[in-house]
């Protein structure tokens, strides 16, 4: 269970408030207008911005002030998810341990993880030698090894084309289902991810609404979300 209570974050003049629970294994999309606070919410959960107030707990453990790597959550950003000077295998291996020298059994796990995301035999390449989709897969392979109870995605597939993005979403969903992790992903297009998530969190003006079942919310959106999505009839 990811539990957020009375969370307050202040960045310059912008303030974000959130209070919600996400049961373990649930998949949640976070959506809302640009500048509403979606990325700030994820950064606060990930431990990259200080909390003004409130509490974050992962499976009962209070991680409100823990450093980012000790919160039981893995995070993928919009860009810069791989170190360009390391090989794909080294990048993925960092999910196990912050070191480049892995034991043979650990190397085997890296290879296994790479093959699960369809990157068999590409471990020795540098990220620049991979396509955009393959780079996303490599980052996912590392997330697999991190085996964190919560996975946070801040639009990591935004730069991919529609077909690739759909493919990556499907793969992510599959991976998360396998590991039983809780998933929170920021998206600008909730319809696009609807089939892969259970719930939807709507963020507007720094106010984070509690999660609602995605089908119900999209078929009958509340006023703010309706305005954000646009009236399909008028397109």
């Amino acid at each position, binding site marked *: 269970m990811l539990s957020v209570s009375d969370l307050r974050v202040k960045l310059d003049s912008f303030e974000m408030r959130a209070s919600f629970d996400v049961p373990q294994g649930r998949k949640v999309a976070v959506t809302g207008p640009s500048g509403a606070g979606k990325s700030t919410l994820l950064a606060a959960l*990930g*431990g*990259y*911005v*200080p*909390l003004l107030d409130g509490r974050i707990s992962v499976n009962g453990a209070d991680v409100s*002030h*823990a*450093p*980012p*790597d*000790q919160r039981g959550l*893995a*995070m993928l*950003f919009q860009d*810069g*998810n791989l*170190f*360009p*000077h*390391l090989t794909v295998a080294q990048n993925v291996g*960092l*999910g196990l341990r*912050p*070191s*480049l020298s892995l034991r043979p059994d650990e190397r085997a796990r890296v290879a296994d993880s790479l093959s699960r995301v369809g990157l068999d035999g590409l471990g020795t390449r*540098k990220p*620049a030698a991979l396509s955009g989709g393959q780079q996303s897969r490599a980052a996912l392979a590392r997330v697999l090894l991190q085996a964190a109870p919560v996975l946070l995605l801040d639009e990591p597939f935004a730069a991919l084309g529609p077909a690739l993005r759909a493919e990556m979403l499907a793969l992510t969903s599959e991976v998360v289902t396998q590991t039983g992790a809780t998933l929170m992903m920021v998206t600008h297009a909730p319809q696009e991810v609807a089939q892969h998530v259970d719930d939807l969190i709507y963020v507007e003006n720094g106010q984070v609404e509690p999660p609602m079942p995605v089908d119900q919310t999209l078929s009958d959106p509340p006023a703010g979300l309706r305005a954000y999505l646009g009236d399909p009839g008028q397109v």
Partner: protein
Amino acid sequence: MAPGAQPVSARPGIAAATCVAAVVLVAMAAVIWRAEALTAFGAAEWQAVRFTLAQALVSALLSVALAVPVARALARRRVPGRAVLVTLLGAPFILPVIVAVMGLLSIFGRNGWLNSLLEAVGLPTMSIYGAHGVVLAHVFFNMPLATRLILQAWQAIPAEQFRLVGQLGLGPWTVFRSLEWPLLRQVVPGAFALIFVICLTSFAVALTLGGGPRATTIELAIYQAFRFDFDLGRAALLSLLQILVAGSAALLAFWILPPLAVQRGMDRPAQRWDGRRAGTRAVDTFWIAFGAAFLLLPLLSVLLSGVGALTQLPASTWRAAMVSLGVAGLSTALLVALALPLAGWLALGRSGALEGVSLLGLVASPLMIGTGWFLLINPVMDPRLLALPVTALVNALMALPFAVRILVPPLRQSLTDYGRLSVGLGLRGFAAWRIVLLPRVRPALGFAAGLGAALSVGDLGVVTLFADPDLATLPLQMYRMMGRYQTEAAAGAAVLLLGMALLLFWLCDQWGRYAER
């Protein structure tokens, strides 16, 4: 920032800064303490201050004034050898002062090419010794530096703007007013300030070409007070003056100093459509030829006269070369050990205000630091035993401001790009440096280390204080040879020293560039 949201902490940097400050302040304290009573501020001191400021001012003015037309010509002409010339403009920065002085002597000296020419046509000859010689050498060193800084800014003007100039058929005056003048206004004050500060602490040039009451810098006066008179009161007073003068100048200049970047890609001029008239072309050609001749003739002359003597160098010269290599190695290691944590600390902060710490190395006089440590070591042990480590340390402090300015921008960029990712994966402290930051900034580190190594191997400064007949660095050995009029041997040593400086720089820079991206 949330706690632990940055992969590296400020602590090692603060520790490094404390070490730097301690080395400088302890030396200063020692000088003052041993001085007992500061000598009264007399006419000689006043003269040294005035000369120091005047020569720095004139050197900086001349360097920038000559650099503008050369940079302008290089920015808009594609002449054969342009790329080589632009690369060579970086050479004086790592050129050992004593080698350059030797080259200048062979052109402008008593038996130099210029005087032979003047004699041949029946004109009175000129002497290079004195204030004008000091300025000449400073311009030789800094005009290329200014040219590079200005050229760099010139080439940052987007190609589209020159396309527009060509499209509209604008004349040179309009181009100057609309494009070039705003640019010069931005870059020239910074270049001027940098050169002014560098010239303020000039020692080796004043030692070799200056001297006498009319051409003695504060730095040289410290050396004379210490070495000839062992007048510690006077040395202490001069050290304080130096800190005051150079310190206030550096603090003022700091805000307009240009960033030092690993300069690549300056070898290709933008496509230009202006300045195609024969007159402009002739003017540009003149300036490029002037820049090339001024830079290359002295070096060429050293090479010509020295290569032959290279095989006949006495064993003592080779021994001195090994000593110099050792000093340079130690100095570079110290430089890297201080610059990396310091730059890491500064890169964490958003503003560059803290960079002032690294300026201590520029501000504090190397001779003062040397004197102070000599006094501290003297009662405990033979200071000559520590001459080389102290020299290496002082050399590292001198190169530190440059190294920090080179390292901070790429470090800041790496922290912005990969800081979150590193922290999320638990890469912190040493692991973050080893796995993330060092590989990212390796080109800049190689460049900075190369500068440090070359500066150290060619430095003729603190080591003169400790002068030991048996244990000299190569520049000191060369200086002694020149004093004994062993011109040929000195020329051979100059070629060796030049080769060492260039090789050390090249090796470090190559190490940086080898980085697999």
